[in-house]
């Protein structure tokens, strides 16, 4: 009867946590789409969506409803199963990242200590990499299964872009890991909380590289070559409609939030509120404050993404590749060497 020998409460706790995190993430994502439109509008001196609900706050729900109500169209010439799997994969991969992000310190409920993190994997950063590298399959499979030249082209672009920038991203992270000495995100955040400076102080260049690469990984403008409307009509989700399209669109935003969360955790102290001593308040409140801090940081990063999107024009494809291979990677290598040299000299 070893089957029942698990700590069921633990599992239930984690399941609830997962559900909450996923649902919250989805909710935030919904509002990020709204936020995107609002930010775009504000940056362009216009009001943005404001009809549905007060200040247009119900707009994302309307959008979602619209996507769900639309007709499901699966092209005849497509590979049916892959066509369906594609968006699901994209969505799953982007949501899986949140498993290792520490959303806050532990809270105490019903006599249990509940970590606000689904799993403290000791190789959390590698896990993130693994998941991120999976994400590209969603796009590739979807693009290919559509049996449309534009979709295929953009899927290929997405893949090559993702692969290219992953390298620089990894190298930038390695430099960070050299300073932290651990791969666990929780430890990294705790180190920053406990009196040290935030890692951004040690790794400014690394952060810039990571940030740029994160943008490229999320297919955000100026790296949104896969969706370059003027060349590729609509990109890899050209043939998609209804909620499958919605999944692709959501996946992009989820990615954005997740990369913001990662950046916040790794370079900006995660749930650490600076100049505030958490021990002065009750642990649960401290956790809530931490969560709020992290969310604010995420929002700031998301805003930064959007800000950039609405400022900088899209790259040409060769420029994109040049930037990735000839600028980012050498720069990341340089950063790594520099970090190594500094660490050694300090020793």
């Amino acid at each position, binding site marked *: 009867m070893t089957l029942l020998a698990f700590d069921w409460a633990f599992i239930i706790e984690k399941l609830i946590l997962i559900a909450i995190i996923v649902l919250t993430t989805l909710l935030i994502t919904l509002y990020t789409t709204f936020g995107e439109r609002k930010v775009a509008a*504000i*940056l*362009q*001196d*216009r*009001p943005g969506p404001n009809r549905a609900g007060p200040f247009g706050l119900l707009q994302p729900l309307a959008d979602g409803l619209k996507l769900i109500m639309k007709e499901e169209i699966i092209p005849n010439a497509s590979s049916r199963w892959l066509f369906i799997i594609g968006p699901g994969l994209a969505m799953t991969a982007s949501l899986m990242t949140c498993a290792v992000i520490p959303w806050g310190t532990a809270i105490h409920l019903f006599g249990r200590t509940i970590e606000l993190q689904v799993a403290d994997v000791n190789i959390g950063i590698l896990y993130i990499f693994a998941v991120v590298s999976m994400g590209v399959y969603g796009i590739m499979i979807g693009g290919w299964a559509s049996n449309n030249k534009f979709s295929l082209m953009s899927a290929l672009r997405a893949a090559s872009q993702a692969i290219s920038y992953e390298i620089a991203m990894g190298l930038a992270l390695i430099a960070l890991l050299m300073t932290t000495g651990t791969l666990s995100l929780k430890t990294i955040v705790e180190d920053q909380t406990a009196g040290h400076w935030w890692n951004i102080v040690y790794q400014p260049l690394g952060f810039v590289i990571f940030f740029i690469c994160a943008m490229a990984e999320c297919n955000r403008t100026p790296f949104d070559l896969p969706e370059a409307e003027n060349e590729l009509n609509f990109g890899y989700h050209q043939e998609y409609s209804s909620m499958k399209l919605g999944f692709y669109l959501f996946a992009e935003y989820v990615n954005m939030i997740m990369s913001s969360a990662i950046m916040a955790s790794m370079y900006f102290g995660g749930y650490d509120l600076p100049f505030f001593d958490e021990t002065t308040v009750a642990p649960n409140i401290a956790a809530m404050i931490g969560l709020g801090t992290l969310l604010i940081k995420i929002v700031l990063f998301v805003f930064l993404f959007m*800000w*950039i999107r*609405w*400022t*900088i024009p899209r790259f040409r494809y060769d420029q994109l590749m040049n930037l990735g291979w000839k600028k980012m990677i050498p720069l990341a290598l340089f950063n790594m060497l520099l970090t190594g040299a500094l660490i050694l000299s300090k020793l």
Partner: protein
Amino acid sequence: MQALTNKSIAVNRTPMTFWERMYLINIIKGMMITFSHMFKKQPTVRYPEQKREFSPVFRGLHVLNRDEEGRENCTACGLCAVACPAEAITMEAAERQEGEEHLYKEEKYAAKYEINMLRCIFCGLCEEACPKDAIYLSETFAPANYTRKGFIYDKNDLLIPNTLTNANALAKAKGVEA
């Protein structure tokens, strides 16, 4: 070549320096520009609620006018159709019968009068051509429609509401006040 005006700016073709090639400064400049726009006043006019003043010479939808007794001015002379550069106007004339004097100003009237708003370029030539002051361009937009057919405005769509019987409608159609 000598510049014709002093407005033209010669393109600077000197190779960019290292810092320029980094584009960082320019990127930050650009970002600041967009950021500064956050705090600018929005020029948006919230349309259905707010409307903007039209200029006095604005040419909107056509209106078939009536005289002060509420009779149609149009005599179906066809001059407007001749003047129309887009050939958007068609009409059929009819003779005024006994007992219709309160409807039509002259003996002849337009039994059918259609303007294809998809063709119309809102040049106002019809207005100028009309000897009877029967057609003029209002200040309203052409509303959206689901079918092409809906854009062919017939007489009912064009005729201005009767001043005597329906004064409010008239005022609304003129678009002068909400």
